[in-house]
Every structure is written in structure tokens, then in C-alpha cells.
């Protein structure tokens, strides 16, 4: 049990309909399961990428991990301590070791506070008033490559990239062990994305951080993540070492995602796999394997029976007819 973070059977649900309406409409359950039973593990100093599209539940999962959302079932063990069901004062202690970076770089910064106030906010929240805010602010800004005079600025005076760095600085204030980064490169130009990713990689080497990156951008994942997990409709359909997942995806959805991010090379033959239809509503989950209505390789069994997870080496996938890999004979 040396993992930093261990998630087992996590379920998070939302109420989609009032009880009365649900009864009237004959809907079985008024709840939607945004996270429908997730198992994850993250070791110290490791970067795990959680990849999925809208509706996959990845942001919900991240928010549940840090206690912003109530959990229906399952267990989250952080540094061997169970997080689910703990008191709010226990949560407060945990939040010194676990920090989150939000998707909207400017919107996640309180608009009426200066950058200095923002990056030193964690100290005030946790009653560590002894620290010299001036010094700490300069230190934190320096860690992310911003000059100390940025402390005077307000969020609306920052560019997207700068605001993201402030978010990183704030997350680092209390020397956390784990950073949850929700779409750290969304909205950033390609020429600037590298700055944030390089920064996170450098900080990880420097401080021994573990990072959980939530994103829909597979290209980014390939470079920064040691392991990758692919989510669809609230479940993890495949996870494993990044290189393996990219080179030999097992799940057809993974394959489709990989092909949806083409190289900027007009000469390359674009084998873009076009999935049928769109992501189904969480209220009407398909039967059997939930991906079957859109899967180019679906067979009759897929509509009737949900596949069990198969472990392969350090990876896992959930599919009746996985794609050919290096170790399996072709034809699955």
C-alpha cells in the first residue's frame, strides 16, 4: 500500500429530476451517475492523466477527490488515510496536502483580490499568519517564473497564461503532495502550452509532486503523463502506461480518441475514425457495454452484456473484443 492515492469503486451521482417528477415520468431513478465505479491508483512522484470528453465525469471525479462533491459510494485513500466520510476539520488538514488548479484560469481567482492576496490565501485560511506574506509571495511567484511585482495586479489584468501560473503558485503555497490540474492547457495557445507543462514537469522533479491531470487533449498527455486513464460515461474504459496506451490501445474508444487528434502533417494518411452519433445522455445509459452504440467493432454480445475489466501487466481495460496488441494474437 505504498501508493499516494488509491481510489476504489467510487460513485458520484447527481439528482437530475425531483422525486415527484421522476415518479410521474416513470423514470426508474431520478439520479444520474456521473462517476459510476472508478478504480484508480497514483504513486508518489507520478503523473496520471485522466482523459475524456464532455460528460465523461472526469471533472466530477476530481472534485469528488478533493471533497467538493459528496460521494455516493466507494473509498478514497490518501496517504493511507480514508477521505470519504471524514469530518470537515479532517478535510481541512487534507487540503494542505492536496491542491487543485481549476479550468478557468481567471475565473478561479477571486476578482477583487490582488495576486499577492491570492497566492497567500492558503496561509490565511489555515491560520499560518506568522509567515511574511511579502516574502512568501515573491517565493511562490518566483517558483512559477513570474516577477514579484505581479503581486500588485488584479485577475482581470492577467493574460490566460499568467493567470494559470498564479493558479499553480497558489496551489504550491502549502507544499502539497498532490496537485489536481483540471485542463491546465485549455484556452492556451500552442506556443504557450509548453510553458505550463514544462513548469509542472520541472516542479515535479524539484519537489517530488504527484500530479493528476484532467484533460481532453491527448497530445498533451503523451508528453507529461506516466500513466493514462480514459473515461467514458463515468467509467474508466482503459488505463495503463502512457506509451503503451498510445502505441497499442486496447479499447476502441481509446483508438478513436487517438485518431481524433491528427498530426499537423498533410502527407500522413488520415485514418480518422468517425464514431457514430454522440455521447448518450447519462439519463439513458446504453445496455451492455455502454460504448456499443458508437463502437465501430460492436458485436451482438456487446449490447447485452457489460464487459468485465481485464488486467494486463500494469494496465487494465474493459472490452469484450479488445484491439490487437503486442502480446495478444491478432483478432482478440
Amino acid at each position: 500500500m505504498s501508493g499516494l492515492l488509491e481510489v476504489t469503486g467510487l460513485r458520484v451521482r447527481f439528482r437530475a429530476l425531483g422525486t415527484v417528477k421522476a415518479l410521474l415520468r416513470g423514470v426508474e431513478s431520478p439520479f444520474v451517475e456521473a462517476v459510476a465505479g472508478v478504480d484508480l491508483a497514483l504513486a508518489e512522484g507520478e503523473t496520471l492523466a485522466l482523459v475524456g470528453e464532455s460528460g465523461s465525469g472526469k471533472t466530477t471525479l476530481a472534485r469528488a477527490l478533493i471533497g467538493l462533491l459528496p460521494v455516493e459510494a466507494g473509498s478514497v485513500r490518501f496517504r493511507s488515510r480514508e477521505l470519504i466520510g471524514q469530518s470537515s476539520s479532517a478535510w481541512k488538514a487534507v487540503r494542505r496536502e492536496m491542491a487543485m488548479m481549476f479550468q478557468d484560469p481567471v475565473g478561479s481567482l477571486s476578482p477583487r483580490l490582488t495576486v499577492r492576496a491570492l497566492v497567500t490565501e492558503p496561509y490565511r485560511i489555515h491560520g499560518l499568519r506568522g509567515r511574511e506574506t511579502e516574502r512568501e509571495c515573491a517565493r511562490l511567484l518566483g517558483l512559477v517564473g513570474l516577477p514579484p511585482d505581479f503581486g500588485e495586479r488584479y485577475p482581470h489584468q492577467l493574460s490566460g497564461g499568467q493567470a494559470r501560473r498564479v493558479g499553480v503558485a497558489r496551489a504550491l503555497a502549502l507544499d502539497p503532495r498532490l496537485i489536481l490540474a483540471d485542463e491546465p492547457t485549455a484556452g492556451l495557445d500552442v506556443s504557450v502550452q509548453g510553458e505550463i507543462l514544462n513548469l509542472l514537469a520541472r516542479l515535479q522533479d524539484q519537489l517530488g509532486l504527484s500530479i493528476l491531470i484532467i484533460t481532453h487533449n491527448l497530445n498533451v498527455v503523451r508528453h507529461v503523463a506516466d500513466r493514462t486513464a480514459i473515461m467514458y460515461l463515468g467509467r474508466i474504459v482503459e488505463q495503463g502506461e502512457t506509451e503503451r496506451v498510445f502505441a497499442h490501445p486496447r479499447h476502441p474508444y481509446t483508438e478513436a480518441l487517438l485518431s481524433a487528434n491528427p498530426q499537423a502533417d498533410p502527407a500522413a494518411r488520415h485514418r480518422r475514425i468517425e464514431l457514430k452519433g454522440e455521447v448518450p445522455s447519462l439519463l439513458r445509459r446504453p445496455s451492455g457495454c455502454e460504448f456499443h452504440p458508437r463502437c465501430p467493432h460492436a458485436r451482438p454480445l456487446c449490447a447485452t452484456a457489460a464487459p468485465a475489466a481485464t488486467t494486463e501487466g500494469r494496465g487494465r481495460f474493459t472490452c469484450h473484443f479488445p484491439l490487437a496488441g503486442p502480446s495478444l494474437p491478432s483478432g482478440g
Partner: protein
Amino acid sequence: MTAAPDLLSIRDLSLSFRTPRGRLQALRRVNLEVPRGRIVGVVGESGCGKSTLIASILRLLPPNAEVTGGAIRFEGRDLLELSPRAMRELRGRRIAMVFQDPMTALNPVLSIGRQMIDVQYREGRSRREKRERAVEMLARVGIPDPAQRLEAYPHQFSGGMRQRIAIAMALMMEPDLLIADEPTTALDATLEVQIIGLLQALQRDFGCSILFVTHHLGVVAELCEEVVVMYAGEVVERGPVEAVFRNPAHPYTARLLACDPGRIVERSRNLPTIPGEIPDLVSPPPGCVFRPRCPEAFARCELEAPAEHAVGSGQSARCHLAEGEGR
């Protein structure tokens, strides 16, 4: 290159915004051509002026905008000289547009059938004919049960569906030019694949030209035949997609391609970036606008702004290094 004149030809377009801090030079000496029936991509990052460029073509600029030079010729007529009424005639009919955010591009209080019928207001067709045309277009873009769905409202559709409806509305009038401003940026990757495929098919069927604005290099490589690269209000390079992507002549294009993580085959913890920021366009730097960030800048770059130099068949770059390389 076909011998027929270009559908859209922008020559030397310069445009500034009057701001309290001074004149912001949003577009400088922009040259761009869209031939008939071709797909041209415009690529650039935030602040490059691509949205301003589109707004200029459609003459939908804010009141503090001022064109300080150049011409935008559509089928030979300079759009900048047209009366507002003549411009309105063109919009929606000969030049159509698809916007970035499918969530807000449709009127939320009208059914989509109503909106699609309204769009045809200039056509001398009966209401029934308009309705049929709307149903036909919806089927064309892959909306299931189109006849029933005419009564539905935008919020009852998903984002991908809404974008398809927006495309249907734009192409229903069979325009000569379709301008698409980041139509897939707000959509998931797998949806983007579908929309790109749809646009390719429709372009083949209708034969219109498409001006496709995006920051996503992969889409340009796949969809577009020609590409225009913009930086800080200027066109720094343009030409056939294969040529530009394989042999970029402008340092910015080269660096931009190098930064695309999809292109970097080896796993790297040190991804390339283009250090620095775009210059303040109220007072752009002397000489070449990319010089402060250019790894290959030399003395002349600060003294003299480069002109566009041809570097190959149809490819040209605004760079001193490109001089003398072409025919």
C-alpha cells in the same frame, strides 16, 4: 492555380481601432486570396487578428474600427465601397458564416424550423417550399427525423447538433463563400472529426469556397488546401498546405509547427515554446513584427519591415530570409 479570377481577394488591407491609448493596428497590409471552390485555412494564435479579418470581410466591425488602406474584392467588387444595403444583400446569401459557439449562435426563443425558414426570406418561394428546403438541409447535415425536429428549440439539441444546424442554415442559401470561425473549437475531439467530415462532404457537393479560421494545425492539415498564417495582425506566410507545413519559410510558422505536441514524436518533458508575448499593437516594434521573438533575427530585421517574397509555387513569406529564394 486556376485561371479564373479569385472569389475573394484581399489586397494590402490595413485596419486600426481607435482606443483611449491610441490607434491599435489590428491588421497590417494583409494579402489573402480564396479561389473558387477551394478551402483556405487561416491559422494564428490569440491576438493575431483573424477574427478582426473576418469581421472586416463581413463589414461587422465596431464603430471605433477604421480601415486605413487596401481593398477586399469579392467577385471583383470592393466590399469596402459597398453601401450597407448592398452589403446586407451579400451577407447570408453569397457569403455565409458559421460561428464558434454553437450554444449562442442560434436564437433560443425560436424553433429551428422558424429560424431556417426566416433565413430564406429573400427567396421567392412559398412557405411550404421553404419548409421542405429546411428539412432537406437538416437531413443533409445528419439530423435524424428532420421533419419532426423542425418544431424543436435550440436548447433541445446537443452542441454538436447545434453546430450542424448552424452549418445547414449557412449552406441552405448555397453561398459562394462560407466563412467558418473556429467552428469546432468548442466541441470535443470526436465531434470535431464528424464536423470536419461533414464540411468536406458538403463542400464537395455544393462547390463553395470555405475560409476556415482555426488555431488547430491538425485540422488545417487535413481539411484545407491552402493555408494563411497570421501573426500580430500580419500575414506572415501563405501557400499550399503541403508546402507550408513541410517547408515553412517563415520562422514563426516553423516554430508554431514545432510547438504542436502532436508533431513531437519523442516523449519530452521539455516541450518547445515560443518565448515572449505578442507585441503591443498600439506601438508595434520597428521593422519586422516578429523580430523580438524570432530566433533567426538579424540586423536588417529591426530596420526594415519585410515585404512578401515568393518562395515556391504559390508559397510566400513576409521575411527577409525568404528574399531571393523564390522564382
